[in-house]
């Protein structure tokens, strides 16, 4: 029954690519609309009903725009960098379960493209490898703003990565497994982790915002300071790939938060599991936009101060307290 076929894996990989790319495109529209409503504007309105076809217009623009490579740039690395961002974001999604296992046409379908028993670490490791996209992009483009963006990438990365790992360590200790499916089973019999590990949830959220370069921590590309940071010299589809990667990472963080802290895809009263997790992911996505509309971004030194002097000690204390509670 638990048979995994090559065909099934390939179909799921293609489905992940297709669905997440589409959702990423749609995410840009939703982001502009929600930001517009929060700022009492209308947002995109002209293309199609309520501006819905704006995505198609943007897509045509991105695909047909000239792919520009600066003269003094390192051409090979410059061309590879956006692919790294997009690829690592999608590879990270391959180990994330979204729906409960189901049966279709009499064939048993497990919910995750590749169920490795250290799922949560794999996702974090792959997202960590995503750092090379902005880093190499910034260093290869022979542009001062890009170099500053790359330096900020490295500085931001070493700051938040510690917090992500340590904040997830306490839930991992409680579940006693690294498999995301075990995390979901834990939620079936216990209270949601957000109630038993509230501090870890907040720390993970903050680190997740930094991981996806969302607004309070979008140091790498903040327009008012470094033009567009690592993406200054990019145009067309290569620029688009950075943002598909960013939206895919946002979805990954939203799924991780839903499964680890918010009960995952267990049935919620009368709401079936698959609908419950879609609602949770949508809420987490909305939360990221909400925060973007509400908060100004921080300075790099403020972010590093926050990560090293506040969040990391809090995460360590949380791990120690969790350990004592489990031992007693």
């Amino acid at each position, binding site marked *: 029954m638990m048979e995994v076929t090559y065909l099934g894996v390939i179909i799921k990989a293609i489905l992940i690519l297709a669905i997440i790319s589409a959702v990423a495109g749609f995410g840009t529209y939703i982001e502009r609309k929600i930001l517009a409503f929060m700022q009492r504007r209308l947002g995109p309105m002209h293309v199609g009903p309520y501006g819905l076809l704006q995505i198609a217009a943007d897509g045509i623009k991105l695909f047909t725009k000239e792919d520009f490579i600066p003269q003094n740039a390192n051409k090979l690395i410059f061309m590879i960098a956006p692919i790294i961002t997009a690829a690592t974001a999608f590879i990270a999604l391959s180990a994330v379960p979204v729906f409960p296992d189901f049966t279709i046409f009499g064939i048993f379908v497990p919910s995750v493209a590749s169920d490795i028993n250290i799922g949560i670490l794999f996702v974090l490791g792959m997202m960590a490898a995503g750092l090379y996209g902005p880093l190499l992009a910034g260093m290869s483009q022979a542009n001062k703003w890009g170099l500053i963006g*790359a330096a900020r990438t490295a500085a931001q990365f070493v700051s938040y990565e510690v917090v992500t790992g340590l904040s997830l360590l306490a839930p991992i200790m409680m579940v006693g497994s690294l498999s995301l499916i075990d995390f979901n089973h834990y939620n079936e019999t216990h209270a949601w982790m957000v109630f038993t590990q509230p501090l870890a949830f907040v720390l993970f959220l903050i680190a997740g915002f930094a991981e996806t370069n969302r607004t309070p921590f979008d140091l790498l590309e903040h327009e008012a300071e470094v033009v567009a940071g690592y993406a200054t010299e990019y145009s067309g589809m290569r620029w688009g790939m950075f943002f598909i990667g960013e939206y895919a990472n946002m979805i990954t963080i939203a799924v991780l938060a839903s499964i680890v802290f918010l009960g995952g895809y267990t049935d919620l009263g009368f709401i079936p599991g698959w609908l419950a997790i879609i609602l949770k992911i949508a809420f987490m996505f909305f939360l990221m936009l909400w925060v973007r509309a509400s908060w100004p971004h921080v300075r790099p030194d403020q972010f590093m101060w926050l990560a090293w002097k506040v969040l990391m000690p809090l995460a360590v204390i949380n791990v120690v307290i969790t350990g004592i509670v489990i031992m007693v």
Partner: protein
Amino acid sequence: MIPFAFYLFAVLITGLFLVAVLSRNVLYAMTSLAAGMVLISGLFFILGADFLGVVQLIVYVGAVMGLYAFAMMFFDVSREVRETRSNPWLVFLLGGGIALMLVVMFAAPIVGDSVKALYPPVAHTTNPQAVGLVLFTKYLLPFEVASVMLLVAMIAGIILAGRKMEISLSAMDEDILPETKENA
């Protein structure tokens, strides 16, 4: 399938690390080193050591290469690095060493057949549990020594970098800064 994957990874890793050593461009060297590190984790996955594979990803690709990248910011990446090889004896010794190592590597399977695992993995444990069991029983002492060593390195790092740490340039009043005085 597994031999094919192994040879694919082996060829790619060797090629990428050759680029890392031979290239005169800092960016090429750094990128290929990072890519090689990612592919090494693939070897761990083939062996069924998922946990070690992910640790390879997080530690080497994430942390170690992240710090390398930080150091690379001080180079001008658009220029080629000029190396000075002054000592011919060094080239001779290193070349001889590499040749010797190749011989040992190709001879290794002859010796390897008779090697038995001293601590075979305990049955019915997952990957992290198996690593933890060996680490906290047989290898507890080396583990603790390593942790003390890392603590020493951390304190040393803080002391080296921590001079004048209470002075924050960005929190300073602008007209106190020495550069702005000169400009004005």
